[in-house]
Structure formats: structure tokens, C-alpha cells
């Protein structure tokens, strides 16, 4: 399996490189009307009464149950559910269809990190047109911020991923190590754990772009700022250096397991205690419960360690649903998105183990006080919903974040592979991103 995955990664990186290169000419042409149009939801209601057929691309496991529930509620609407691929495959196809001018679905799942890219190329409908700005108070500030690009509203948030520290309580107890509250304590725990048993590691990390950006986010770094066609990249800012000064110690002392996330080896290591903690998004309980049965009763959740004791965290992952400009049934598609992320579609999503972006669900006591048998009866959502309120503000992704992520392994990844400080890798990443951005017609400056 590994050789195919390797070729797949190469192919995908190539595809992303090719595809992000294509739409640049139209970047920022329209669809980013500053201030955002604000209409009413009447057209959406009318389209829903009229009915019709729409196509929805997603890889969310709960989508099937959601579409069935929607069609029961609105029998005159048919939703053609298509899993066109996961992550980059999905975006490659979406970008292809946008470029070709046909073949895109009416509604698509788009992760927050990918949203600016599609929004800025005019591929997505500004939902402000249908009065969806009225939903602002229904979502956490960080997710609402994530679906806005250049003053437009380009999707409704579905899930969120405020970060917390998932840790293997059994391992921590066995070696008498306290759960770290600061990153200094985390590094110390890493050293003690690995010294006590060289087969165990505090965490696994071989350089994941999503993790890098989330950790910079938490440390207060804001390396990417975009204003129309001008982009500023500063991967040497204070926050970024605060993160590397912690993480460099772990990488240089080889205290992180060289296991790539989401592989069979990674799942195995989560089950057998090789990996003692995971600083990751609040959606992780669903993954652990579904895919790491051997970890049942061992794992627990704590707030993400901080630098100075002040509670602060960042988002990791999460997606929104967006309506494509290409759609011939934009109002009906918007109605489906409204139902999905601001109506009865949220419940099937929660039932499948999703972590919501809606404040009402985050605040409900049924959700907060749910005791999870997998986590030894711990009320994990109390920790995770608290984290949702502590997400640092002001973060933005690059308008070509998908490309940036695809070359992360070739730059920052090299630091990990060599057990060296991450800063030179970040500088190489920055240089590649500046060059690419300028080629794409952005005016890129560095800090």
C-alpha cells in the first residue's frame, strides 16, 4: 500500500500545483464585493418550495444520514450525494470543474484552509446575497471568521476543531508523569517519558502543514495576511519563533515519533501506547472511538498546553459547505446549506460524532455533560467546548494554502527528517511561497 500512497501524494501535489496555477488569472476578479451584498432569505424559501435536484460533493461520513433526513423533510428536493474524493482529490476535481466552466456540483464541502482559494477565484457564491449574514451569532467567532473572505460570506460552518491535548492516561500514570499545562512542561514530560522507555514518545510528528499552521496560530503568530491581491508572508514573526523554540527541542532531541499521521502505523501506535499525546482538534474523539478500539479506557483530554499559563488555543481542521457559482440552482443549493449547517442537518452530524461550530449545540448541557465511556467516563466535551471559546483571533490562511500545504513536506519536512531546527525549513517554505505567489499574480512581500 505504501508505494501507491507515495505515488498518490506525488500525483496530488502535482495536480494541486498545476491546478492552482490555472485560475490565477481570474483571481479577485469578482465575487469579493467588499462589504458583502446583503439580501433576504425569501428567494431561498421560494426555491425550497419549488423543489428540484442538486448535487452535493462531500466526504463527510454523516452526509448519507443527512441527505436522507433532508429528503424526508423536503420530498420535492432530490440531493445527488457524491463522494468525489477526500481532501486534495476533492479540491483538484473542484478546481478542474471551475476552470473548465462545467461539471462542478451545486454544493461542496470546503475546509476552512481551502476556502479563501476558491472564494478569491470567484468559484463560490456570496451567501450574503441571501441574507445569511443574519446567522453570525449562531456560530463561534473563529468559524464565522473562517467562512468570510474579503468581506464576502462564502459558506456556512459545519464543524470546528478547537485544539486540546489528548493524552494516554495509562502511560502517564505508569511513569508518574503529570499532565503538562505549559509547553515547557510538555518538553520536560517528553524527555522523561522517552528516557523511561525509549519505545515511547510524547507524540508523533513528521511535519504536517495543518499542525504547523495551527501551532503558529496558538503561539500568536500571524504569518499570512492578505488584502486583495497583496499578500504578506512572515514565517519569522514572534509567534512563529515562539512555537519553533518549543518544538525545535522535541525535533532536535528526536523526542517525537517518526510516524506520519493517518497511516496504519499511526493508528497502531495510538492503540498500543507508543504515542502518549496528540495536540489536535476537538473532532478527535470520533476518530479514536471509531478507529482505535485498543485505546478504549486509556485516553483522556486536557486543555492544550500554553506558553504562559493564559488559556488560549487554535483551530485545527474543520469545514464549511459552500454554493458554487456554476450552479444553476443557487437558491436551492443555499437552502440545502442552510438546512445542513443551521437547521435540522446539525443533529445527524452530531450523532455521527462530529464536533459542531454552532454555539447553541456547544452550549447545550446534553452535549457538554455527556460522559464518554471510551474516555473512562470523562466529560470530554466540557474541555472541548471550553477550548472553542478560547480560540485566538485574527488568523488567516493563504489564498493558495492548498499549494502551500502540498510543498510543506519538501521544505519544513526536511527539518523533521534531519532532526534539525525548524526555522531554516520555515524560511525555505516562505521563499517558495513568495515565488509561487508572485508567479500567480499576487504581490507578495515578506515581513
Amino acid at each position: 500500500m505504501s508505494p501507491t500512497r507515495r505515488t498518490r501524494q506525488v500525483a496530488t501535489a502535482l495536480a494541486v500545483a498545476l491546478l492552482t496555477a490555472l485560475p490565477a488569472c481570474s483571481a479577485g476578479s469578482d465575487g469579493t464585493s467588499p462589504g458583502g451584498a446583503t439580501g433576504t432569505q425569501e428567494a431561498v424559501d421560494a426555491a425550497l418550495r419549488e423543489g428540484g435536484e442538486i448535487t452535493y460533493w462531500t466526504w463527510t461520513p454523516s452526509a448519507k444520514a443527512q441527505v436522507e433526513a433532508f429528503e424526508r423533510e423536503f420530498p420535492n428536493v432530490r440531493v445527488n450525494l457524491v463522494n468525489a474524493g477526500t481532501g486534495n482529490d476533492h479540491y483538484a476535481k473542484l478546481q478542474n470543474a471551475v476552470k473548465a466552466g462545467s461539471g462542478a456540483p451545486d454544493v461542496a464541502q470546503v475546509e476552512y484552509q481551502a476556502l479563501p482559494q476558491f472564494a478569491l477565484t470567484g468559484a463560490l457564491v456570496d451567501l450574503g446575497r441571501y441574507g445569511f449574514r443574519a446567522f453570525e451569532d449562531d456560530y463561534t467567532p473563529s468559524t464565522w471568521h473562517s467562512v468570510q473572505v474579503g468581506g464576502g460570506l462564502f459558506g456556512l460552518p459545519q464543524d470546528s476543531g478547537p485544539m486540546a491535548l489528548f493524552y494516554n492516561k495509562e502511560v502517564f500514570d505508569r511513569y508518574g508523569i503529570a499532565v503538562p499545562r505549559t509547553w515547557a512542561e510538555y518538553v520536560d514530560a517528553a524527555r522523561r517519558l522517552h528516557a523511561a522507555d525509549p519505545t515511547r514518545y510524547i507524540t508523533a510528528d513528521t511535519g504536517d502543514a495543518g499542525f504547523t499552521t495551527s501551532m503558529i496560530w496558538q503561539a500568536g503568530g500571524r504569518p499570512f495576511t492578505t488584502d486583495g491581491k497583496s499578500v504578506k508572508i512572515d514565517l519569522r514573526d514572534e509567534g512563529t519563533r515562539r512555537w519553533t523554540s518549543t518544538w525545535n527541542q522535541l525535533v532536535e532531541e528526536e523526542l517525537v515519533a517518526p510516524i506520519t499521521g493517518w497511516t496504519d502505523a499511526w493508528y497502531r501506535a495510538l492503540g498500543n501506547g507508543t504515542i502518549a499525546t496528540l495536540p489536535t482538534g476537538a473532532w478527535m474523539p470520533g476518530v479514536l472511538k471509531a478507529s482505535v478500539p485498543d485505546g478504549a479506557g486509556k485516553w483522556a483530554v486536557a486543555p492544550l498546553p500554553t506558553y504562559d499559563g493564559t488559556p488560549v488555543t487554535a483551530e485545527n481542521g474543520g469545514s464549511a459547505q459552500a454554493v458554487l457559482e456554476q450552479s444553476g440552482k443557487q437558491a436551492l443549493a443555499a437552502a440545502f446549506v442552510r438546512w445542513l449547517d443551521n437547521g435540522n442537518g446539525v443533529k445527524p452530524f452530531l450523532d455521527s460524532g462530529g464536533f459542531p461550530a454552532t454555539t447553541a449545540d456547544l452550549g447545550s448541557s446534553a452535549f457538554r455533560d455527556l460522559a464518554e465511556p471510551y474516555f473512562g467516563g470523562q466529560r470530554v466535551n466540557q474541555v472541548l467546548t471550553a477550548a472553542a471559546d478560547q480560540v485566538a483571533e485574527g488568523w488567516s490562511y493563504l489564498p493558495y494554502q492548498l499549494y502551500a500545504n502540498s510543498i510543506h513536506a519538501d521544505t519544513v519536512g526536511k527539518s523533521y527528517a534531519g532532526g534539525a531546527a525548524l526555522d531554516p525549513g520555515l524560511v525555505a517554505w516562505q521563499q517558495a511561497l513568495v515565488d509561487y505567489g508572485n508567479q500567480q499574480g499576487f504581490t507578495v512581500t515578506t515581513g
Partner: protein
Amino acid sequence: MAVYLVYALVPLAWLLISATKTQRALLGTPGLAFGDTFALFDNIAATFTHDGGIFLRWLGNTLLYVVVGAGGATALATAAGYGLAKYRFRGRRAVFAVLLGAVAVPGTALAVPTFLLFSELELTNTPWAVIIPSLVSPFGLYLIWTYAAEAVPDELVEAARIDGAGEVRIFFTVTLRLLVPGIVTVALFAVVSTWNNYFLPLIMLSEPDWYPLTVGLNQWSARAFGVGAQPIYHLVITGSVLTVVPLVAAFLLLQRFWQSGLAAGSVKR
């Protein structure tokens, strides 16, 4: 040699052993050890029934793409290669130059432009989008060309002409038999490359019902990533084994045709 054997066989052994494990044993036991239970048949059954039996559909799609695509590519390469080898006409050298250029361009690099072209023709997301590009095999054409130049003696073709046979009849009764080893080689190349084709169908198709096995299995594999991940590695591995089996069968079946130069040296020059 020993190193090569280990390099070639260990992954295969890993694949075969892993196919006998449950998802849980797959993640709980070392790679080259058997699990507690021998779950191969359960895995095969699960592979064929998961997602409403879509694996069988993918298998059928792959067969369709191979039979029509690779079969068509072989037929076209044979006809064209023979024509270029045995007939003198204007522009032959130009064809040669274009052909060499085409051999040098990797198919992957053409996938995106091909997508845009097919989108104009409204053929994306249909089986044609996979079949039509795979009908063209510059390398196969080149192979037949050089093979026909050697394996089909001009004297034999001339003798047939003197006996009063038409060009079409000569091709089907005389030439084709002499070309069989070359055709089998080209067919094997075309079958393998169509069977393993990943990037083109990945780009062209968005409807899982039309996926070939490669893209479909990768989609199953991708379920292990990210939010809401539900890894089904045991099915991906079993599916991979089932995907390799027909290829191995094709090789064993076709290799007996693989005798070279049936008529080489049969004519005195």
C-alpha cells in the same frame, strides 16, 4: 540477486499476510506475522459487499477500460505500426518525429489539458473520458513498427502480392501471424498501464460509479484521513490483492505467446 528477491517479495508477502487479518489485528500485530484469526474469506466477502457492492462495479469498470481501451490501443498500434514499417509514403519521417516526441511526454502531464479538452466536448465523467485517451499508445505503435520491420520480411509480402492477395488479405492472413509476439508484448504493456491507470481517471471522473479499481481503492484508503476518519485498511488490502490477481493471470496466460521472431531468418536475403 538475493537482495532483489527480498526487495520484490517482502512487500508481496506483507500484502498476502495482511489480507488475512481483521482491521483490528492489522493494527495490533507486526506486519509479517499472522493475526489470531484467519479472516481472508471474511475480508473478501466484506470487500465485495462494502458500500453496496461497489467493488464489483469498479472491477467491471476496470475490465471495460482494459478490454476496450487496451484492446483498442493494441489494434490501432498494430495496424499503424505495420503500415509505417512496410509502406513508403510522404510524411513518414514527420510521423516518426511526432511519435518519438509523444513517447517522451508522460501521460500524467497531459491529464489536465486532456481534462479541459474533454470538458469542452462534454465527455468528462463518462467512461469515454478514460477509454479514448488510452486508445492512443505511441510506445506500442513504435514497438510494432520496429518489430514489423524485422519480423515481416518484404519478400513474403511481395510473394503474397504476386500470388494475387490484396493488401487487407495479406495483413490478416500473413502479417498478423508473424506479428503475434509483438502484439502480445504491446497488449501486455497496454493492459498493465490501463489496469494501473490512476491519474487520468482520478481527474476525469467524479462519479464513484465509474471509477476503476485504482481510484476506488484509493478512495477507500483515504477514509483513514482527517475529521470523521473511518479507516478500512483490511478492505483496501484485500481489494489490492484481488486487483493484482487478474494481472498475474493475464501474464501467465499471455507469456506462452511470447516467443520471439516466428519468421526471423526464414527468408534468405
